[in-house]
């Protein structure tokens, strides 16, 4: 292909890149402006003055609480999900029992179901056991719904572990628990880190469970929190922009540092469906 041909291809790819990135840059720009500037000036103009106080203002008036809730709920659910998924995957792939394929199938069916079909009974179950408006309902729901995808990513790795490791450990008199926690689990570190990234993105961005099960402001996570918050600040674009940037920042930072892991995780999660 000639140089002109390649030039044309680069232009095409460049346009796509601008389309993908520009709305986010525009958002960042107006998060640093005030309404007068946003409404009168060009939307693409740089802010005349960097109004970081938009950020301080929204952080102080509630976003901070939502942020910490998102952090701890995301974190605890990740730990629980990966621990339970690793244990189940270990037993299914490494231990010898008849129903292992059937049980694995049950987990994989979990990949297909639309969560909205389960949400009404979940709501009434949590109501019955007093877990409505309790952040633990969110933690266990995230754990359950992320188990299938996490196990799917772990599976391939567990299948390829050499038998000799287990044989050696057991002949040395090592218990199964010790073997799992001290030998197997550390060996799965690379694939576990992929599942951490995927779980982090899912949990951080989840909306409908929190919107349904949580009503108090003090327990809300960012997705639902910003939704209410933006209602209050309807007309203050700078505040809305700052709120949105704060809500997406942790994921963007994780992406900058671990972009290869994110790419790997998203590709691995694609096989579901």
């Amino acid at each position, binding site marked *: 292909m000639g140089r002109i041909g390649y030039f044309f291809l680069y232009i095409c790819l460049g346009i796509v890149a601008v389309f993908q990135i520009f709305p986010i840059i525009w958002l960042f720009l107006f998060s640093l402006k005030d309404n007068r500037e946003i409404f009168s000036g060009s939307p693409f103009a740089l802010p005349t003055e960097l109004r970081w106080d938009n950020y301080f203002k929204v952080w102080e008036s509630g976003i901070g609480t939502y942020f910490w809730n998102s952090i701890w709920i995301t974190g605890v659910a990740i730990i629980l999900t990966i621990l339970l998924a690793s244990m189940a995957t270990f037993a299914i792939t490494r*231990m010898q029992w008849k129903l292992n394929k059937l049980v694995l199938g049950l*987990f994989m069916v979990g990949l297909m179901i639309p969560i909205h079909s389960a949400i009404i009974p979940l709501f009434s*179950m949590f109501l019955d056991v007093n877990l409505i408006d309790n952040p633990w309902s969110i933690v266990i729901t995230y754990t359950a*719904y992320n188990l299938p995808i996490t196990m799917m990513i772990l599976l391939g790795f567990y299948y390829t572990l050499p038998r000799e490791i287990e*044989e050696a450990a057991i002949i040395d008199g090592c218990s199964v628990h010790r073997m799992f926690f001290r030998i197997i689990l550390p060996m799965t570190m690379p694939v576990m880190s992929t599942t951490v990234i995927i779980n982090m993105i899912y949990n951080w*961005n989840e909306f409908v469970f929190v919107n349904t099960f949580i009503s108090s402001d003090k327990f809300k996570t960012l997705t639902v929190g910003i939704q209410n918050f933006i209602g209050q600040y309807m007309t203050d674009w700078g505040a809305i922009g700052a709120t949105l940037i704060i809500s997406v920042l942790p994921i963007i930072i994780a992406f900058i540092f671990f972009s290869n892991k994110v790419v790997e995780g998203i590709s691995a999660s*694609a096989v579901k469906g």
Partner: protein
Amino acid sequence: MGLNVMNKVMSNKWIIALYVLPALILIAILIFIPLLLTGYYGLMDWDGIGAMEFIGLENYITALQDLKFWESAWHSFLLAIFSTLSLILYLAISLILASKIKGADLLRKIYLIPMLLSSVAIAQLWIKVYNPSNGMLNHILMAIGIENPPAWLAEPSIVLYAIFIPILWQYAGFYILIYYAALKNIPESIIEAARIDGASPIQIAYRIKLPLIMGVVKVTVVLAIVGSLKYFDLIYVMTGGGPNGASEVMASYMYKLAFTSNDFGYGSAIGFLLLIITLIVTVIVRKVTATKEEIQY
């Protein structure tokens, strides 16, 4: 003797139960039982708090005659069509990206960024993009001389298309990532052989690359269609299904029935229909796209 010990230890029922049951019980209670209960609640007249009254199939019959339900199903179906068609665009971009482009790795990561944002943030951002007087889109349109551009999210005839743009934006990086990886897996020798035989780049793309990644394309068709049937967050936040139901989809209709109108019985019936439709469509699409044999390189 060693292997005997090994087999004995590794088939210890108690240990297996200890490792599998926590996860299994969790998905049984929080995924499978609720799914069955949805079908069961669908047989009830119930406001979510008071006593349930068994009314048989009445909710399901109502649903089949409910114009709003069919409208929302139609919208979900349209989104599934749009999503499937957009795969062609993603595929074209991936073909370009995988043809010895410098910086392809960086570009596909840039494309992926919207995929990482929450649907709520995406919805809020695009509400601003579409804002009739101060949004980015209408600013651009007025700058190039278009007078009176529409209020995108308030027009029943265009709202669904307007909603599809952020969906296109959100998932572009995801599908490009998958296609790009598949294209990079094609052995260079095959492409080289075709080139020596005098095939043009277009011919190579169409006759060689495309057939070789057909398996992956089929998987993405399933993902796009099934994913579309489950759309909720973005639409719920952007328009709430409005104006006047013009962007209502199955999941948002169900959610409103239960949690806004407190009609848990009817909402559950719709939720169960959503489950059944999703499963049927998944099976059909998989059947239609099933490959007889894996392509050998």
